[in-house]
């Protein structure tokens, strides 16, 4: 029905949709988690911030899993290169993403403020680390990563975690983090109320400023609300 080239094009489009879906849908709950200790000070405020993403964050994360599944099915060499080459980076992302469900579920189980603040900070780290690493990964893709396939189609690379953390890719990571935090702040500003929304508005504004400083030479034209 379709030839190979057409199928490849369709799968590229699907992969793009999955990644965009992930950035749009999971972006705001990663951002909300990253902002949690900063926009919400008291226990009640933190509960408000968590409840804005509570019902949806799990479903949002499925975009990422589906993205991984899609490249496994449609682009095995890409899957091999991404998961072998970025092995330790993936490990970091996984650890951070595993902190999220645990944080969301364990947080309310004990009343001790130290317990709650521990899980709040692990949620925060669980929001920051993936946002940063995804950006770093994309930075490296733009820069090009050293890998090859030998005659037996085995994957070889000289990529290490530290070679991934080059300044160019780190800048990408910062841009990605600031975009996701901006996304989360806009979400909190819309969904929450009271001091949480107010602090989120301020963060959102400052993130918008710093992002436009990263991405363009034009000065930020106020807060585009």
């Amino acid at each position, binding site marked *: 029905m379709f030839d190979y080239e057409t199928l490849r094009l369709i799968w590229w489009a699907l992969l793009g949709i999955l990644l965009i879906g992930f950035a749009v849908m999971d972006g705001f709950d990663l951002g909300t988690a990253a902002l949690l200790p900063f926009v919400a000070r008291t226990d*009640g405020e933190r*509960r408000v911030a*968590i409840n804005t993403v509570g019902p949806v964050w799990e479903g949002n994360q499925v975009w990422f899993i589906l993205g991984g599944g899609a490249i496994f099915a449609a682009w095995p060499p890409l899957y091999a290169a991404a998961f*072998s080459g970025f*092995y*330790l980076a993936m*490990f970091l992302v996984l650890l951070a993403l595993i902190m999220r469900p645990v944080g969301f579920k364990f947080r309310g*189980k*004990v009343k001790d403020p130290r317990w709650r603040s521990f899980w709040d900070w692990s949620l925060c780290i669980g929001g920051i680390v993936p946002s940063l690493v995804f950006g770093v990964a994309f930075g490296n893709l733009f820069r090009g990563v050293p890998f090859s396939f030998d005659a037996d189609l085995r*994957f070889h690379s000289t990529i290490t975690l530290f070679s991934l953390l080059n300044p160019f890719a780190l800048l990408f990571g910062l841009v990605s983090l600031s975009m996701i935090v901006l996304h989360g702040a806009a979400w909190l500003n819309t969904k929450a109320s009271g001091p949480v929304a107010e602090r989120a508005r301020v963060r959102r504004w400052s993130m918008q400023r710093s992002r436009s400083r990263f991405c363009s030479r034009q000065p930020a034209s106020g807060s585009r609300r």
Partner: protein
Amino acid sequence: MALLSLPLPWLSSELGWIVAEYGRQPWAVEGVLPTFLAVSSTDASNVMFSLAGFIVFYSSLLIVDVFLLTKYIRLGPDATLGRTPKEEAA
């Protein structure tokens, strides 16, 4: 007796897996992909590191989980469990 046989399904599935792994040698995919070509070129130290990381990470989560389980078992059914977050925040 019933209590002692609890690990048996797990044991038999593990043993079945071991039999399958030995039985397909020297092929990863029978007649197509020999095992030595199917081995990942990912550095063994990376794999050791991530395995150790996951063991430490999941073991700590297990400890926390068992702590929470025993806590809620001791508290019995009318504890805070089942309250909505809104009630808890108030």
